[in-house]
């Protein structure tokens, strides 16, 4: 992957910047560039989301895709942010056996991946349980 693909989404990935429709006020993350309800009548603007949420569902990954092998077993989850939108993320620094649907989590800044050993390193959000 060339750097621009990740680079252009740095605000979204580092700081959970989503979008909000100025017409219907619905908040989107991951960002959308046209409001599915209002379509061309909508006006999407950047919107900074809350960094806390709850686990809606999760799985424990034992067979990881390339680049994630060293994290096994890791918790993959869908988190619902306080502002409403949901996202797919990892829940880090936890015992997978102690995760439950409904657990409160907060955003952390982690390495997401890298282009091999000599390529660009990608950073972004993951989540951890609120102690």
């Amino acid at each position, binding site marked *: 992957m060339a750097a621009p693909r990740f680079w252009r*989404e740095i605000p979204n990935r580092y700081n959970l910047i989503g979008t909000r429709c100025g017409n219907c006020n619905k908040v989107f993350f*991951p960002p959308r560039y046209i409001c599915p309800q209002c379509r061309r009548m909508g006006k999407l603007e950047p919107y900074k989301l809350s960094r806390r949420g709850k686990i*809606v*569902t*999760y*799985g*424990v*990954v*034992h*067979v*990881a*895709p*390339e680049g*994630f092998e060293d*994290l096994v*077993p*890791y918790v*993959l*989850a*869908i988190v619902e942010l306080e502002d409403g939108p*949901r*996202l*797919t*993320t*990892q829940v880090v620094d936890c015992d*997978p056996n102690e995760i439950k*649907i409904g657990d409160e989590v907060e955003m952390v800044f982690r390495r*997401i*991946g890298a282009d091999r050993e000599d390529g660009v390193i*990608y950073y*972004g959000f*993951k989540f951890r349980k609120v102690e």
Partner: protein
Amino acid sequence: MRDVAIIGVGITKFGELWDLSFRQMIIEAGARALEDADIDGKQIDAMYIGNMSAGQFICQEHIASLIADHAGLAPIPSTRVEGACASGGLALRQAVISVASGVHDYVVAAGIEKMTDVMTEQATGALATAADQEWEVNAGATFPGLYALMARRHMYEFGTTEEQMAMVAVKNHNNACMNPCAQYHTRITVESVLKSPPVVLPLKLLDCSPITDGAACVIVAPAEKARKMDRVPVIVAGTGQASDTISLHSRQSLTGLMATTRAADMAYKMARVGPEDIDVAEVHDCFTIAEIMAIEDLGFCKKGEGGKLTEEGQTEIGGKIPVNTSGGLKGKGHPVGATGIAQVVEIVHQLRGDAGKRQVKGAEIGLTHNVGGTGGTAVVHIFKRGD
């Protein structure tokens, strides 16, 4: 719009076909379908080929031309159709529409995937491109991962158990044992599913469909021509297709596929039947939880009761609604682009009454259900005996 029928079906063996290339596989399936239809290749007007990712699996794009060429059917129009694992079902729908519209008479709808020319990690990576790369795969999601998220939520909301999911795999392996072209001819038990290695919990290895090579082909023709042939015509009574968000997290419900419900509604309406009228169904069981959700979304039971329906044995051959008599994706194998067409091959056999040991007695109306990704695409077809 005129009525459309399936007049011939052909399928390769499904499995790890080390000695067969992409080209050999599609030609084998195509030749069998033409033989079954008892027509000459020269009569074919057009082809629609369902294929998810020859680009990733064999580094070959532009496969529609390649297939027309190697089938000796150039210069007829040949078009590749892609909707991830629903590519086959979409290819059929395009073929049906082209015949129904009167543009073409005899049309090939085929599906193919050659998945074992890359290593397993590359194959799973290729499959993951059907999910949202930016916001799912980058987070460490895989296909089993995303279906595990649905499974966990289904267990949480409806009390579905890992045992019930395992029963889907057990049933589909049993059915596959009776299907000569199936990848697996091995019986498994609930216990062996539960004890199989974890992939993404709650899904274990035996909850997952395998990596498979395979090709399947059906010949679509006007119903009026089919009725003049001396075998039971199988009419395409309904077709439906729907789209949903590509990423799972953006959906209202994580325990069902809206695209399936919508596509089924379209197909049921067009066929003027309801779920209670279906005698046999091939559904998209890429993971055991997917079959449980599918039988709910298709209306064979209420939402949340798919696990129970499975546990009661109602989806077995001889049950209220036999599901995946072919062995399904789990037992027959899942060459992604071919799956949607392979499902039609099974239903045609069932409606003709020549499905052998796995025959559902008196089957008159059948349904196929093919899903792309985690449900970003779904396509449903309903078939009726035309006699």
